[in-house]
């Protein structure tokens, strides 16, 4: 089976994630887009593992999942705190620090 379609899909997901970060305002959605990028990388890892016939990529995917889960913990803590303070989850509202 050709691995190419999976790589294309992975690149597509990564691009969607990156653009999502740029265009979405809600901090949670922005964060989800970042997670999408990580999962795009996971797909690439697994695909390449298949391509090379070794397991390194698959193991990498597991590690990334754990790291992403930890990231959710930290990220949600921060986002929820600022949401409670500002009554808004828009990343554009937090722009006191500039110039």
């Amino acid at each position: 089976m050709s691995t190419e379609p999976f790589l294309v899909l992975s690149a597509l997901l990564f691009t969607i994630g990156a653009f999502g970060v740029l265009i979405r305002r809600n901090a949670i959605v922005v964060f989800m887009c970042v997670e999408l990028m990580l999962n795009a990388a996971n797909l690439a890892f697994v695909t390449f593992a298949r391509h090379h016939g070794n397991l390194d990529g698959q193991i990498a995917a597991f590690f990334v999942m754990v790291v992403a889960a930890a990231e959710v913990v930290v990220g949600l803590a921060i986002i929820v705190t600022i949401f409670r303070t500002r009554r808004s989850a828009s990343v554009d509202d937090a722009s006191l620090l500039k110039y």
Partner: protein
Amino acid sequence: MSPMTALPVLSETASAVAPAQAGGVYSLLWLVVALPAVSAAILLLGGRSTNAWGHLLGCAAPIASFALGVLMFVSLLTRDAHDRAIEQHLFDWITTGSYDVDAGLLLDPLSMLFVLLITGVGSIIHVYSIGYMAEDPRRRRFFGQLNLFVAAMLLLVLGSDYLVLFVGWEGVGLASYLLIGFWQHKHSAATAAKKAFVVNRVGDMGMALAVMLMFATFGTTSFVGVSAAAEGASTATLTALGLLLLLGACGKSAQVPLQSWLLDAMEGPTPVSALIHAATMVTAGVYLVTRSNFIFNEAPTAQTAVVIVGLVTALWGAIIGCAKDDIKKALAGSTMSQIGYMHLAAGLGPIGYAFAIFHLLTHGFFKANLFLGAGSVMHSMNDEVDMRRYGGLAPLMPITFLTFAMGYLAIIGFPLFSGFWSKDLILEAAFAENLVVGFGALLGAGITAFYMTRVMLMTFLSPKRWADDVHPHESPRVMTVPLLVLAALSAVGGVLYLGGWVVDWLTPVVGEEHPELGVPVWVISLAAVAVVAAGVAVAWVLVAKRDVPREAPVRVSVFTTAARADLFGDALNEAVFMRPGQHLTRSLVYVDNRGVDGTVNGLGGLIGGASGRLRRLQTGFVRSYALTMVAGAFVVVVALLAANLS
């Protein structure tokens, strides 16, 4: 002697004999630098408890260094002419494989003269400052900073390696910054200090690049190593080195195009001006060029550049000196001009190095004399600096007047005074090199005579123009005695050339070559005297024969306007660099109204404008930051792919 051949019979080149290791009295060489440095540390860190005796310690340190210097000088005299280079190794500073830098000191005839000048004239200025700064509550700190200045300058001239020299070089810059801004309550002083520092940094950049280039091409930065390696180096490398060193020299010595800081530097207390102008700081550039003779000798293009810079500055400074009503600024213009002469001489090669140093010494005497004299005048005139408010001071301040007169006669090159001998030699060398350079230098001598006569007349001789509440008086003994000493030196400094001594003394370091003139030497001397006489006469007609108005006349010729505005040096900076910068900034709400920095001059305006605009890119929005990152990532990846897969 070096094995070099194929040079004119008349010339003698510098010897490349390895310096002897320090022993005997020379083992105390480090003390020469350490004494003022330690004294500076004590005075600056000691706090108020040292107030009572701070100035005494501050004077004792350079005097002790001077005494040590004299001891070593006498001892050097007894040695063989080619065995007068002493090296003292202090510690291994940087050792990385093939590249070593010793923190070491080198005492040879060239640095010996500088040590004597710096500590000698420096000591006199220190003593004078006791009186001058008597009323200042921060006198102790002033002495601490003066000591720091002297220590840095001594390190500069004694370092045996370009990198050690560079440490002293930056130290001088820092100390001058502190001293020029000493009266920090004056806004103009703070601005002047900053300007001096920043302009000097431009020169330092040349210096730093030169040292780096040496390291990269020769693998060493010690004088001995570089001079050995320079013989085999390509002309292109040496020319680049020479030009970079010249840039450094221009910064420190206030040569065109980096001259603008010197006039502003007059904001410092007068003893500082004397120290900067006579014994330290501005002489560093001449020292650097002379010390690097092994580079410049092999790089004619760089030498020509030095000559041009020297000649232009000699005339530039002299013209500025003509139009200044501020006595210190007039003298500052003359310093620029005289240092220009020294660079001119040094740029001529072995023919002129010794003359440059000789002129540097005599200039050290008479310029210190003139500045301290001016300080004495200001001291009695309630710190008035405008010569239009002086006049008729000669009978009231006889000692100051007479000593100032000695300095005056020396600087214009009145026969038999010190300046006469040293300037005459430079003129000879200049004429031997090139007629244009010779006549340019001669013209400068005439202008010098004009503006110095003007200063003399406006200050001491013309009718009194000061207000009734000013009571001029002779200065205290502690100020007049230094003046007397310096006046004596200004008058008889020419003895250094007795039997060509100073030239012979320096030959082992800089080589020797006698000028070959088409005409007898006395013709040039006579021409010089004639030109000087003409300058004096013109000044007499223009200044003494008319009344000097108390206010500077507004309707003056375009030349006077130009000269008053420092030949538009700042205006040029402004037009080329600052205006476009201002246009850039105008559309932005960049008004630095917080007193952080009112004056952004030169390039600063442009960069500041760019900065003001660029910082608007930092919008505070996360998403725009993410956009810059994506754009950056895109560029990085595309650049990688494009550069490698095309």
